[in-house]
């Protein structure tokens, strides 16, 4: 994206009717590493490719539990993502206390978008620098949502955001129509395959650099252990060796 006049702050329109600061904020997501979300009739899954600042460092966590029926991952500015996670957790817990029941995931995502919208219409604020993928469960089943700095949110069958997400998107587009009735394990394999397809060859895929979490009608939100992820990864690489 080239620099333009009219991009100094969030409250200035360009003559073409664009708000450049928001568009630049959306670029921040592409700097973050990959997030993938997908669902079947019974489960929704998030998978992320984590980065480590250096060889000596731990991989940085991007995938968080919001409530027993909601999970979140994000791409972009980690600090913004963690603050959003804290907000969603507080809202979900507050609702549970006053209403005696779990908050509806779509309502929660809507609250986040309302907060994000305020940041696009004040001279003193900047938009959030993250896109979030949210999985959640309500009476109608599992859902996958994407939120972004422009304060929109969308619901998806399957979605990918972050660096090199196009390969993951292409994989999901080819396969999503088969997702509805898959078992939990088959769905997990698709999620990990989508992550793999975006990973460059020099990126090490292991149980810590890849995170996966699942929520479903009979499954409160939980992370897959790194052993379970490694098992899936080696299953996939064996299969690929056979194909070749």
């Amino acid at each position, binding site marked *: 994206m080239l620099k333009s006049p009219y991009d100094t702050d969030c409250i200035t329109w360009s003559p073409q009717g664009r708000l450049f600061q928001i568009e630049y904020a959306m670029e921040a997501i592409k700097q973050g590493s990959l997030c993938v979300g997908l669902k079947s009739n019974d489960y929704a899954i998030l998978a992320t490719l984590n980065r480590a600042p250096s060889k000596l460092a731990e991989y940085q966590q991007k995938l968080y539990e919001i409530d027993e029926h909601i999970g979140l991952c994000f791409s972009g500015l980690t600090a913004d993502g963690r603050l959003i996670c804290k907000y969603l957790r507080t809202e979900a817990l507050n609702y549970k*206390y*006053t*209403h*005696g*029941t779990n908050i*509806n995931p*779509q*309502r929660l995502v809507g609250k986040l978008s309302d907060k994000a919208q305020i940041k696009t219409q004040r001279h003193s604020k900047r938009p959030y620098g993250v896109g979030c993928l949210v999985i959640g469960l309500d009476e109608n089943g599992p859902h996958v949502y994407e939120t972004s700095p422009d304060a929109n949110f969308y619901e998806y069958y399957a979605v990918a955001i972050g660096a090199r997400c196009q390969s993951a998107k292409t994989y999901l587009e080819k396969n999503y129509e088969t997702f509805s009735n898959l078992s939990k394990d088959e769905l997990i394999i698709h999620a990990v395959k989508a992550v793999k397809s975006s990973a460059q060859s020099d990126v090490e895929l292991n149980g810590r650099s890849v995170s996966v979490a699942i929520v479903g009608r009979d499954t409160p939100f939980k992370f897959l252990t790194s052993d379970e992820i490694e098992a899936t990864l080696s299953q996939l690489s064996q299969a690929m060796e056979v194909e070749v």
Partner: protein
Amino acid sequence: MEKSATVSPILTGSSVIAVKYSDGILMCTDTLASYGSMAMFKEIPRMAAIGKSTLIGASGEYSDFQEIIRILRQKDTDDFIEHDGITLNAGHFASYISSVMYGKRNKGNPLYNSLLMGGFVNSQPYLAYIDLYGTHILGDYHVTGFAHYISKPIIAAEWRPDLTEEEAKILIEKGMKVLWYRDARASDRIQFAKITRNGVEFDDPYKFNSDWDQESFKNYSLNPLYPYN
């Protein structure tokens, strides 16, 4: 700004009785609001519907009852405005208002009521008792106020989960009649309301008959607990 707190109630309703029956919840109150010992308003409703999902009846301060109705109906309207198909059921309203009442109790400024809330949760009949302290209890039948002492033993002896509407009405009317005999703040003009899977329905209020010429009233010494010899 001067703070004020509800110190003691002024215009009050007496007992509420509600039972689960075969079709849902049946609830009954008398139609009296008392101003201390004065029977000030003799034909006012002490039950209300919140949307289509919830029937609520209250004893205690009448203005606080009106406020509770306003709060809960506002919540129902908020859902309608969201227009996303999500609605709150009786259980949600009960949890919500009991959280509100507990919070206000902790600040020393309660909503001075005992409420019974009825509806359906997960397609099952739901009946809750909620009071000014923030107590929130579920049950097959509930009463408020004086009816705890006078009517509840009668209801408890005869309640069954498969009561028909007629049977439930007869049972509750027994409880309301004894209240008229013994509660100095009760009245003999009562109203029934029910909530079923079709929604909330209010019956017309009516006056029931009572017999003040009973032998045991006229000749008190017939009372087995009469203390004088």
